[in-house]
């Protein structure tokens, strides 16, 4: 499985729906999708990782980079997942303290 990146909107947020594996080969596609959204004026981004099978430090770096991009515009980038294996990666790296992580897209959009 490769990585599919779908862009949409939900409420007043931009939604990035990811499916597949995020690693050193596929992470540049995620980076570009985030850059495209931010350059298109998005400041509120929800990244749905519920269908992500694999995430590595390259992918985490891209998410951190995305968070930096929206923060300078007083925006937000939040994560959606209930998967233990993904949550564990955020926990080990301490990034669970940096990102807002929600159990559903609706919860992410409702949070502010």
């Amino acid at each position: 499985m490769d990585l599919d990146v779908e862009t949409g909107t939900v409420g007043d947020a931009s939604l990035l729906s990811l499916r597949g594996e995020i690693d050193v080969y596929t992470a540049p596609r995620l980076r570009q999708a985030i850059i495209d959204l931010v350059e298109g004026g998005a400041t509120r981004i929800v990244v749905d990782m519920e269908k992500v099978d694999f995430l590595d430090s390259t992918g985490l770096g891209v998410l951190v980079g995305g968070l930096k991009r929206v923060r300078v515009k007083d925006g937000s980038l939040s994560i959606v997942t209930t998967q233990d294996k993904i949550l564990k990666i955020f926990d080990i790296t301490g990034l669970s303290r940096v990102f807002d992580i929600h159990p559903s897209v609706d919860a992410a959009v409702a949070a502010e």
Partner: protein
Amino acid sequence: MSDAAVAGPEVDDTELELAFPPRPEYVRMARHTVAALARLHDAADEVVDDLKLAVSEACTNAVSTNARGGGDPVRVTVAVTDGSLLVDVANAGPGIDPSLLEHDPELDSEEFTFERGLSLPLIRGLVDHLEILPGEPNGSVVRMRLALAEGQPE
């Protein structure tokens, strides 16, 4: 679990040897191949997930190092001893500074200076034992041990 399991694989215990070009698209193949070997030994799902990520991180480091160097292949060796998987990922470049093993990433939510520094801390958090050894004839070897069953071995 005796120290012998940490000391190194006997030749007879080696069950998998991989050599692949130092290009990003090959990292996925490497982690899935090592994961398939772990499943052959009935590794728990959580162990397979940890193994895939640890192997992937080590291979990504090696791909980056070797691609900057002479383009030497990345070499992965897996042995199974005493209920543990012993994975060596060798790179041929200038190697990894072993002092990085002691490095904790700076988690400053305002600065984010650690984007490239998450790999070794992540590996350390996933495996039961991690060593960085000098490579032959050069480079370094990231050696990782994971118990096949869930939970930490004694």
